[in-house]
């Protein structure tokens, strides 16, 4: 089912550069994003947040604020029916044990991070809401805080939560690591530090809520997870079928809209006031309060033989969860499983911990823990190569996983692992070396490979559903709960349905992301949507096709196996035909349904005890290799990336233009991580709450990324596709660091690689 369609003809649409229907709307600004929505009588809402990172609320007075002009309501914790939010793995109902985390909707008495929400204000205008928010009086008692995970794990550290600051601890162990190191010819060690970064989507968190005529709390918002309607229902103590989330086309998600953002607040305020309510976060508020990517401190020790073969690796990871857990335990699990990279290791151990601090909370972000560790393992691979006097490409080729090899956690690679081809493609795409353009500039090259899981953890029993149906005139409707974050998720579903049902793609209309009206499809995260919802649409389309062709066979009085539907026509082997419309009319007469609901269940597995057990954790992985050529100004430390070639095995490119776009966009986001993005904190206070201080790459900062699409065909997604949303973001940082070492001989082990960091490594800075 998950492999290529067995159609008796060549594919017409899959693999073609389809112009996406949503792109047409977007070039004329016709797309109604979540903030582009107004309802009669709509109120505007803002959140009152703590300026302190660690404090107790001594007093809270909303009287003066509530009396201000235009204020409709002010809500605090005691006004919330059930003030607890569970960050369950979104959309799942399976027991997930320690991966379940809790936080308050509004703070009750304890503040654990700057920006923690305390009150909600709704007023006639946004200006009035902000004026009233400023008039809410909160008396704080600042408390000692802890701002570094290592310090948080010290015995006398201030407790962020009563149960202690260690949130999660995962271990993987395989083989005899000590024996491995003992026989190694070379042992290299490194400590790598990565930073907090922000999703920094262009569209801030936004939404509008209202109560519709059925009493259903309806929230139209920018989200990667419409299943949060359940969270809103729980908080409001309403039945889950009385809350509806309509997911709009997002102006970017990147994991930052995976947790709840504005929906619970909007639901509360709409429910309280019985009026429509709008909330749009400013950029400042988004940068201040939205969860960040986990920073890690990583220690790697790698042992290799003279032949280049790695014989042992020991990894320690320490992550920062900030004030609340959110998805930290799961992110850490991804890091633990992928910490050794796409390599065959006879002996490996990983010891990974994540601790609470009073820093901003950290949660999902593109790459989800499998990203940060690439900086660790790919820096190590180059160190091993230098230690052995071998080519960095060769060391990777020698150690790359192959079909039948296992990761340290025991998961066996069931498909071809294209790492050697990806290395060759990426490296040769760099072409002729660029000569240094001036005496103060050095040029170097480096590569980095990665593996990124796609699809959810197998014991979460992931599934997705989709409905496909013909109207009487032959136009096709696809309904899927899948949110579209901008990566063409919705368009791919149209492409798949049109392919199977033999209609032009312009004839397909798709409705997505409505928890009341579209079959649920799970989250647009984990690079899972093409895999899961693509397969759901594929399944629904195939099953519908079978139904319709059986009816056509009856109408034409031929064997069902001899009919096919293509280009709005049903053709029999003997040359006779029916138009699609005639077929559909015939189906109506015969009582044959013209639509079908398909449910795709991902192959499930048993939970794996990472430490003692061994087995499959993720359905599959996408492999990649990036090659970078950089120029280093050896007087100022400034790094310019001249070329970046990014190769990924995508299994099959459903829409090659979309795949290239994902690779280019992800890689540039990765370059931002590598060179300039950093949430700067001072005792938990965020100093980078504007786009003037939190820097994301502009067109002038990055080269054109050369996207190299390899299609080995063995993905679990429709037509053999693999997930490509996340993989491209991870390799650039290591590729750039490796290129800098090639150019200058210095190794940067801390991100971002700012000019000052390079200048210091070069010994240029005198105190």
């Amino acid at each position, binding site marked *: 089912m998950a492999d290529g369609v067995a159609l008796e003809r060549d594919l017409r649409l899959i693999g073609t550069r389809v*112009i996406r229907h949503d792109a047409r709307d977007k070039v*004329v600004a016709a797309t109604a*994003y979540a903030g582009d929505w107004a309802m009669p009588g709509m109120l505007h809402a803002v959140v009152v947040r703590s300026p302190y990172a660690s404090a107790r609320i001594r007093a809270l007075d909303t009287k003066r604020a509530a009396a201000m002009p235009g204020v409709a309501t002010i809500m605090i914790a005691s006004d919330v029916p059930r003030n607890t939010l569970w960050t369950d793995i979104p959309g799942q109902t399976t027991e997930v044990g320690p991966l379940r985390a809790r936080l308050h909707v509004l703070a009750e008495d304890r503040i654990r991070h700057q920006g923690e929400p305390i009150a909600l204000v709704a007023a006639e205008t946004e200006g009035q809401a902000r004026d009233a928010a400023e008039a809410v009086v909160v008396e704080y008692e600042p408390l000692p805080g802890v701002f570094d995970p290592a310090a948080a794990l010290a015995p006398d550290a201030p407790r962020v939560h009563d149960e202690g600051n260690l949130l999660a601890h995962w271990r993987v162990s395989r083989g005899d690591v000590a024996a491995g190191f003992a026989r190694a010819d070379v042992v290299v060690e490194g400590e790598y530090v990565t930073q907090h970064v922000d999703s920094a989507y262009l569209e801030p968190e936004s939404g509008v809520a209202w109560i519709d005529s059925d009493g259903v709390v309806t929230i139209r918002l920018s989200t990667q997870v419409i299943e949060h309607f359940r969270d809103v229902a729980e908080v409001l103590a309403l039945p889950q079928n009385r809350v509806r989330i309509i997911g709009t086309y997002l102006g970017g998600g990147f994991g930052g809209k995976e947790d709840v953002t504005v929906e619970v607040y909007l639901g509360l305020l709409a429910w309280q006031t019985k009026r429509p309510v709008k909330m*749009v976060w400013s950029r400042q508020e988004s940068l201040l309060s939205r969860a960040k990517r986990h920073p890690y401190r990583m220690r790697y020790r790698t042992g290799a033989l003279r032949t280049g073969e790695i014989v042992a690796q020991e990894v320690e990871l320490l992550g920062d969860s900030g004030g609340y857990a959110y998805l930290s335990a799961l992110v850490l699990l991804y890091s633990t499983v992928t910490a050794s990279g796409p390599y065959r290791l006879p002996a490996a151990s990983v010891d990974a911990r994540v601790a609470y601090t009073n820093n901003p909370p950290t949660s999902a972000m593109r790459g989800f823990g499998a990203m940060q560790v690439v900086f660790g393992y790919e820096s190590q691979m180059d160190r091993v190569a230098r230690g052995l006097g071998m080519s960095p490409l060769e060391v990777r080729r020698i150690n790359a996983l192959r079909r039948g090899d296992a990761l340290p956690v025991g998961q066996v690679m069931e498909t071809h692992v294209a790492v050697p081809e990806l290395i060759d493609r990426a490296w040769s795409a760099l072409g002729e070396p660029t000569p240094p353009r001036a005496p103060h500039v050095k040029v170097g090259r480096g590569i980095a490979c990665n593996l990124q899981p796609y699809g959810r953890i197998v014991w979460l029993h992931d599934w997705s559903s989709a409905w496909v149906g013909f109207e009487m005139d032959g136009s096709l409707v696809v309904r899927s709960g899948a949110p579209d974050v*901008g990566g063409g998720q919705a368009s791919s579903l149209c492409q798949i349905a049109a392919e199977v049902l033999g209609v032009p793609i312009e004839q397909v209309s798709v409705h997505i992301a409505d928890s009341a009206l579209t079959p649920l499809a799970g989250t647009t995260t984990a690079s899972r949507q093409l895999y899961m919802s693509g397969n759901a649409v594929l399944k629904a389309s195939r099953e519908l096709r079978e139904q319709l062709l059986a009816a056509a066979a009856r109408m034409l009085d031929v064997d069902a196996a001899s009919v096919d539907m293509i280009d709005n026509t049903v053709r029999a082997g003997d040359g006779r035909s029916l138009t699609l419309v005639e077929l559909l009319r015939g189906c109506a007469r015969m009582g044959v349904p013209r639509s079908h609901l398909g449910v795709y269940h991902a192959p499930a597995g048993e939970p794996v005890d990472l430490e003692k057990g061994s087995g499959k954790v993720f359905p599959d992985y996408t492999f990649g290799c990036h090659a970078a050529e950089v120029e280093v100004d050896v007087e100022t430390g400034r790094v310019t990336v001249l070329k970046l070639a990014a190769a990924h095995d995508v299994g099959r490119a459903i829409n090659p233009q979309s795949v290239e776009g994902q690779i280019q966009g992800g890689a540039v986001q990765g370059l931002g991580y590598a060179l300039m993005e950093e949430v700067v904190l001072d005792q938990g206070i965020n100093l980078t709450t504007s786009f003037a201080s939190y820097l994301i790459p502009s067109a002038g900062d990055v080269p054109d990324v050369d996207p190299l699409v390899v299609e080995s065909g063995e993905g679990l997604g429709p037509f053999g596709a693999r997930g490509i949303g996340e993989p491209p973001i991870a390799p650039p940082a290591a590729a750039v660091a490796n290129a800098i070492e090639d150019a200058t001989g210095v190794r940067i082990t801390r991100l971002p690689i700012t000019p000052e960091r390079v200048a210091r490594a070069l010994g240029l800075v005198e105190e």
Partner: protein
Amino acid sequence: MRVSLHINRRARAVDVEPSSTLLDVLRDTLGIFDVKEGCGEGVCGACTVLLDGRPVSSCLVLAPTAAHRAIVTVRGLEDDGELHPLQQAFLRHGAVQCGFCTPGMLLTGLAFIERHPGADREALRHAIEGNLCRCTGYAKILDALEDYARESKRG
């Protein structure tokens, strides 16, 4: 106060608070959602409009100061329902993903190419440095702009 705004070749008289920005008036008063708020400080470019032919951040223009000046937003590019060739180029080259930066990119690119027909890729790259995009990595946007710049020199 009453202000006359000329938007996409049409004069509109609106009542505005002096403390509202052109962005606010376009979106909240006139329902023109072509302009987006991405940062509130003129860095991201999502709110770009052309003011007398030049790109400005509508989030940094107080509504009264926009009176009597020619304002162009993306919906002003279409001609009788036909997409502008630059819009078509964006579609052809896959230059649109989430689309939030797209209106700003189109207007900025268009204004630049009108002043510099046949501009090369590096000049175009520099021209859109002030428009942030988080999805595309800029390459396909530059492909579209380069294509249109070439066309515009011929035509």
